[in-house]
């Protein structure tokens, strides 16, 4: 029998549709009977959705400008090389 702890262990697999049909059915049956696990799954899903709208690894603008400069330099060098006679 699937206990609440077992469900918590595979909750992300359930949310992402990674369980097989039998496992998924077992989880669904547990959720029908267990309000606490329904809250848990709902909250874990909400937490995961939060991350979809929150891009945390935003590099700072200074870092991006450093890349711009290196790219511009490399593009210029390529342009210069390209115009050199064979």
């Amino acid at each position, binding site marked *: 029998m699937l*206990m*609440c*702890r*077992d469900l*918590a*262990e*595979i*909750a*992300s*697999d359930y949310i*992402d549709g*990674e369980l097989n049909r039998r496992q998924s059915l077992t989880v669904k049956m547990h959720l029908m009977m267990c309000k*606490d*696990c329904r*809250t*848990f799954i*709902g*909250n*874990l899903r*909400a*937490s*995961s*959705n*939060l*991350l*979809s*709208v*929150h*891009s*945390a*690894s*935003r*590099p700072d603008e200074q*870092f*991006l400008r*450093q*890349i*711009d400069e*290196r*790219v*511009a330099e*490399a*593009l210029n060098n*390529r*342009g210069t090389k390209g115009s050199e006679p064979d």
Partner: protein
Amino acid sequence: MDTAARPEADTSLIDDLKRGDPGAYRQAVREYSPGMLAVARFYLDHSSAEEVVQDCWVTVIDAIQKFEGRSGLKTWLHRIVANRCKNKLRSSKREVAMDFSESLEPELANRFNATGRWDLPPKLQFHDSADTLMENGALSDCLDKHLSALPETQRSALMLYEAHQHKSDDVCNILDVSASNLRVLLHRARQKIFLMVETFQETGEC
């Protein structure tokens, strides 16, 4: 969205990059560097990761000429970063340390009794949608803080899967982890974010 899902925008950007258009590079650097940095941080410390991402952009100028679009531009860029990081690790003979032994966070595991039932079940339901929740500046700051405290391996897996919307197969490929280990990384990271939001909603504190 995966870049493959919007091929027209991608194709036009790729053409501009192939022509060496500086404006296209500035656009692409802003669009793709966050994900590239997330990949690099999986393998390397912060300053080495930034260095690799910068180097990769310079490499892209020539490499893009041979890009045939079999994968999306994003996936292609992420693979370039991953390969460069792996080479760097190989040359320094360092390995990424990861723990896949437990799928439950200890703080959550302790909330079940010996029979496997909830001892301390979640009390509140997170009613608000993600967008509404993120309008709360304090919660957004708290999320930033907790995300930066996650082990790099978990954070990168989470960012690539959730924020950059890669498919599992791509994430496994880019981060060089098995499908089952990716599941553990994702689940552990999500539990930490769940616990953080729960504490925030109950106490208003981060």
